[in-house]
């Protein structure tokens, strides 16, 4: 019984990771296509959010705890990146009349 649940947990986690991979593909599509800078940055923000979730699920699938650390690092970097992009957008406006 316990083993069957364990197996189910892994299988579901794999399935969910695949779903998240599709979501990452979608966000990446929006990031590449744009059309504007703002759209790309929003998509990048979204993408890292999904990636954090995917990292957590991968930690369950592979039973390696390190992937959670990866997720934490990703979340940290994503925040800094988004703020940098926001500053870029705002600053550019001031420079180009």
């Amino acid at each position: 019984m316990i083993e069957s649940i364990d197996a189910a947990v892994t299988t579901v986690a794999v399935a969910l990771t695949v779903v998240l991979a599709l979501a990452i593909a979608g966000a990446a599509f929006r990031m590449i296509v744009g059309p504007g800078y703002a759209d790309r940055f929003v998509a990048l923000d979204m993408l890292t959010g999904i990636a954090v979730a995917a990292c957590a699920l991968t930690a369950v699938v592979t039973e390696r705890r390190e992937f959670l650390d990866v997720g934490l690092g990703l979340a940290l970097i994503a925040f800094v990146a988004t703020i940098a992009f926001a500053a870029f957008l705002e600053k550019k406006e001031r420079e180009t009349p």
Partner: protein
Amino acid sequence: MTALVALLLKLVGTGFLAIATIGVLRFEDSFQRMHAATKAGTLGAGLVLLGVIITKGSMDATVVALLTLAFLIGTMPVAGHLLGRAAYISGAPLRSREDALAGILPRAAHPLEERTVSAFLADVAPVVSRRPAAETILAPEAPEPDDLPYDAGYDGVRFALIAPHARMVTRRAMRLADAREAALTAVAVIDRDCVETARVPAARDAIRAKLAQAIEEMRAEMGGCPSRFSLSYEEGDPLALIPASAREKRELLVLPTDGWCHHGARVTLPVFEERLTDKLFQVAEKHEGPTLFVGFREGEGGRLVVMHDGSRRVQRLAAWALNTGLWPVSALTVVGEADASQREALGAIAADRGLRLEHARRARSSGRLLLPATCADAAALILPRLPERAMGYGEFWYDNLAPGWRGDVLV
């Protein structure tokens, strides 16, 4: 049981993330996309992390995952807010019918990508081609429009009635119109934006009262209506109503140096007063023809200073002002980068009037001040364009020309 809860949390979280992705893919503008990404994204990632915590159960995994969760919840909204603000300011296209932030945040007219393409080409093209062929790649610079299609005189004088200075502006406009027997047009406008954004009740009535008072002052100043006079009284966008739209009418626009179409009524506005003075500049920019900002010297004669930037427009403007005799000029100084032929042309006009043209290089040490100290006795100033930002906050833009100087400025 816990396994089931964990499963459910992960399922729901993944569902939210998937829905958020659909939102990011299918919404129409970046602000709607942002709404999907930040809200549903944070919730989805948070739920998945919670599910993983329950599945793992071990201490170290829980700590790391909880840290990640706390960090996500703390930062995603902040990042979303900053990104949204930056996107708005940078002019990302907006699909909604109304712009609720208009006038509260500055906003670029065109999105960044449209603006950077040309700027990038301008940067790169000379490096790549090393030839002046760059102009053919870029949109060729429009030939400078003949801003003043006439050599002297004007057929009409148009002046804005703006309350605190109504008397002075009226007096000057009347004198200018009389000198050429030109038609005189007074424009009294109530800025609808000011009425709508005012934070006091009955702002419209307060502004109307002030404007009525200004019109009263104008009538008193005129002492009965001169023959070729018209007054238009409107409520709307002053930028559309004050400037003359047809160049053929050859109108000279006379403006006060400060104030705006709330006419000094005590209405609290969400924008700074300084930005309202900038709007007076925009009126001048929109006007087809010369604009005269009336200083407190009442147009008495004296030294005329031309701030020359080498452009054709300021050259024509100076020639026009001299030929028209806007002021009784007693001395003429050209400051800045006029080339020899331009100086000669102005000198010839000046010689007709028995004047000698002096040329002064701009003292670089004068900092922000436009007018060199040697020309502080100037009665009037001709500028190629108005200063881009009118002033530091709370500083009168005239003081950026020269502190304490209050002559006329022709643009």
